[in-house]
């Protein structure tokens, strides 16, 4: 593989410079008087409020609540839907059984089930976990299904020739071979999990970052509201970065293989 082209200073610096100039742009717009200062506080104000809310534990607590719901829903979906998807992908009979139900439920926007979920589960954590679980299930399930279904015949034949029984075939051949597809299901589900967790907190909750943002808007604590938004932005970015790191480590082989290696 040839080493990547050397990047010029402009290419290297342009991203971070643009990112850092956003608060300055914000500050300029706020000070220009084009929009009401009440709705558009200065960046300096927002950042100051953000630091104090982080320091007094308000935002960390809210973030912890949001994140733990998101993680619980996401991991439950992963633990149940990857095996179920693989099983459906491998069995034409299960495919016939499940496909109509999946196709019917899949286009349903997850927020639509929040009111019903509130009836059964109240406005506590279990409702949010359930809604996140529901929203994450479909991308994970469908990708695991396709991944298992499209495992090249030669891989499974090879496994059988070298004495793999059903268990070894599934764990050592089919799941690794399907892992690129499974990972893309998880990659799609991850931001959905955050979106749905926040949204369900806005609709029915007494805590979490979603509730915090909406509440601050209602009591006209506008810098606080923006501080909540910034927190979510940063959290989303960090979660995604961590996932990409795991993805790159787990699927290092896949890129090399697809490129044809040496």
């Amino acid at each position, binding site marked *: 593989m040839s080493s990547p082209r050397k990047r010029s200073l402009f290419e290297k610096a342009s991203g971070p410079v643009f990112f850092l100039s956003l608060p300055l742009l914000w500050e300029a717009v706020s000070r220009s008087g084009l929009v009401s200062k009440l709705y558009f506080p200065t960046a300096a104000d927002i950042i100051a409020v953000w630091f104090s809310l982080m320091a007094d534990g308000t935002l960390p607590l809210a973030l912890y609540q949001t994140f733990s719901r998101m993680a619980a829903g996401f991991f439950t979906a992963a633990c149940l839907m990857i095996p179920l998807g693989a099983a459906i992908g491998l069995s034409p009979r299960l495919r016939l059984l499940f496909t109509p139900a999946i196709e019917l439920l899949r286009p349903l926007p997850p927020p639509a089930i929040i009111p019903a979920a509130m009836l059964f589960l109240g406005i506590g954590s279990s409702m949010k976990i359930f809604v996140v679980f529901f929203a994450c299930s479909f991308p994970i399930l469908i990708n695991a299904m396709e991944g298992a279904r499209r495992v090249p015949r030669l891989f499974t034949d090879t496994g059988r*020739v070298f004495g793999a029984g059903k268990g070894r075939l599934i764990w050592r051949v089919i799941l690794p071979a399907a892992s690129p597809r499974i990972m893309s299901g998880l990659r799609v589900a991850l931001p959905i999990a955050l979106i749905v967790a926040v949204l369900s907190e806005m609709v029915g909750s007494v805590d979490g970052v979603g509730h915090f943002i909406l509440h601050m808007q209602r009591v006209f604590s506008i810098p606080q509201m923006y501080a909540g938004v910034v927190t979510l932005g940063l959290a989303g970015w960090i979660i995604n970065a961590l996932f990409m790191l795991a993805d790159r480590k787990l699927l290092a082989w896949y890129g090399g293989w697809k490129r044809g290696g040496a």
Partner: protein
Amino acid sequence: MLEIKNFSKTYAANGACPSPAVENVSFTLRRGDLLVLAGPSGCGKSTILTAAAGLAPPTCGQILLEGRPVTAPPKEMALVFQDYANSLFPWRTVTGNVLFALEGKGLSRKAMRDAAASSLESVGLGGFGDHYPWQLSGGMQQRAAIARGLAYGAEILLMDEPFASVDAQTREDLEDLLLRVRERYGITVLLVTHDIDEAVYLASRILVLSKRPSTVAAEITVDLPWPREQVGTRSLARFIELRNHIHQLLKAGAPSL
């Protein structure tokens, strides 16, 4: 040790009339044989091999290993596929791929590592265990596939056009490697090829198959001296004679234009 009896395979395409690919082929693979199935492309050679490996049952006929019918891949046989890039697992290193063949055997970790290392050594991949297959050349990947078969402890190595996807020089190296490891491990080989020169060079016996639906056109015992040697063997008068004879047989069986 491996008997193919009245083997027939019919493929039923959707809607179309079922067309026979192989019709009533019988032969016996004896211990120590290097039997080559030679025939034109698409004549069903690979079909016979896949069935012998226990991967797809014949439509009619029987496959017997030491007298027992083969219904699933038996542990006495290993298969080397033509498409090495998709039969070596790309998520495992070369050593990992060889270890796969050892994982069902209940060996200790150390015994497995040692066995994998020694079989890689014997195909000349000693220093390449930590590479991924896709980091290696085609010839080296096929060596890794052979090492996996050796590590599995197979008595019979089934090979489906194993050297068809590599360049000429590499192909000669791999042919000689096969002859060497066969000698050293005392394995029996059933190899499929459409290359007549390769068939004559490698084989102790050649089964010439006719065009589709294929039947056995001839069985030829290759009486060339051992050990075979690329330049020497290929320039023997007997080599050329056998080669031309098979060529005639295949031409006679080929569709006339």
